[in-house]
Each structure stands twice: as C-alpha cells, then as structure tokens.
C-alpha cells in the first residue's frame, strides 16, 4: 500500500478506501501458462487481485512464413493489480516464469492506475476434516 491513500466519498454513502499509485500488469501468454502464473501469484506472492481470461491474438507468426502473417492464435490474458513497491518484482517474475523472453512467448505491459480499492477475501475457518478429505482425493 502506498503512502497516499485518498478516501472517496460518494454522496452520503460510507467512505470508500481507495489506494493511489497501484499498477496494473497485463500479460499475454501462450494458452495454458496463464493458470500456472495465476497460481504462482496467488500462492507464492499472496496476490488475490489477478484474473485470467482467453483472447484471440493476431500477429506475425514467422514459422509459417508469409502465410503466417495474420494468423490467429488463442492466448491467455492475465491481469493483476499490484502495489507500487512490488510492481517491478512482479513484472519480472511474470516475465521470467511465463518465459516471455523466447520467440512467441507473449507480451507484458504495466500501467499506473488512478485509484483502486483493496480486494479482501473472507476469513475461512480451518476445517481439519475438509483438509483431510482434500488430501485423500488429491490426484497423483
């Protein structure tokens, strides 16, 4: 969270805490890699502000020579909102783990947001039975 935290007041409604200077990182990745990155962001970076959807990409596919120009491929599109002090770290992480630095590896970009609220997940009490059940049904 950044130092400046403006509070938005819409009419008479309750004040909405909004954080300034947040960054939005968007990565266009080959199909299938998006889910791995989403998991990485959630489990290892503690970020719950990531979303994933599919998109149709139009670009240059040199593999097929001239015929490849204009070919359409399906891509994973990941978007994540991160605090400014972690932006470069997360940008580099997605770039390297998503293997964007190889031909046809995709694309990544980052922009500044004017305002964003935090996204908090509800507290879920630990249920030892549920955990045990999950371990039993876990695939090999």
């Amino acid at each position: 969270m950044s130092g400046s935290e403006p509070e938005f007041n819409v009419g008479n409604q309750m004040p909405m805490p909004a954080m300034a200077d947040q960054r939005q990182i968007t990565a266009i990745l080959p199909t299938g890699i998006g889910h791995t990155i989403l998991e990485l962001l959630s489990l290892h970076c503690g970020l719950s502000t990531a979303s994933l959807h599919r998109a149709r990409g139009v670009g240059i596919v040199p593999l097929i020579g001239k015929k490849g120009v204009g070919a359409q491929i399906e891509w994973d599109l990941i978007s994540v909102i991160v605090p400014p002090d972690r932006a470069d770290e997360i940008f580099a992480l997605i770039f390297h783990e998503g293997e964007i630095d190889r031909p046809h590896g995709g694309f990544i970009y980052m922009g500044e947001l004017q305002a964003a609220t935090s996204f908090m997940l509800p507290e879920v009490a630990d249920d030892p039975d549920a955990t045990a059940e999950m371990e039993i049904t876990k695939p090999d």
Partner: protein
Amino acid sequence: MSKREITVLTDVALITCVVQRGFADEVIAAARDAGAQGATTYYARGSGVRERLGIFGVAIDVEKEVINVVVSQDQLDRVFERMYLAGKLDTPGMGFIHVTALEKAATYVPEEVKEKLHRSVRRRG
C-alpha cells in the same frame, strides 16, 4: 530472482477499442496497416445505449469485441485514427476507443534487433 535480463520498452501506449461483434477484424486490419505489430481480441457483453434506443436498439449487438493494441508513442496517433475510421466510431452505437499510457512493456527481442539498437545508441552517444 533470475539474473536474466529484461529488455524494457518505454514510450508505449495501449489502445483499447470496443466494437460490435464481427467488426473487430476490420479494425485490426486497419491497425496493422498503420504499423501495429499485433492485437488481441476478446468478447464482452455491453449495456447502455442499446436499452435507451428501445425498439431501435435491436440494431446494436449486445455482444462486443474488445481489441487491445500496444503501440509506440510515435505510432499512436496514426493507429488510433485508422482504428477510429475503420470501426466507423463516429456513428452512434458503433463503439468506443481509448488510450492508456503505459509505464513499460517487455517481450522477446531478437539478438540482432538488440545489437542494432545498441549500435544506434552508441552512434548517438
């Protein structure tokens, strides 16, 4: 963290264009004609003006296509204008286009391109 380097691209902007379903291909072709390297498209559901138009609203498709194009600042005005015209965005209900400034972007840059860039920087320096 990995020690691999990232070739960061700056002075780039994201053009986002929302058009009715089926119109994206023309807009993308115009963007590429104007120099854009690529684009991504996905479907979205729109709402707003269609409801206000009552019975005439049937002419406006509720399903939209959202086009994302990242371009350099040099190309921005040209690509933006061509996309606007190709999407006939001056017609009410046809769509919407906007530009977002980006801090940085990165992708695979071939060695020969990197070398060319280094050479031009050395020449200027």
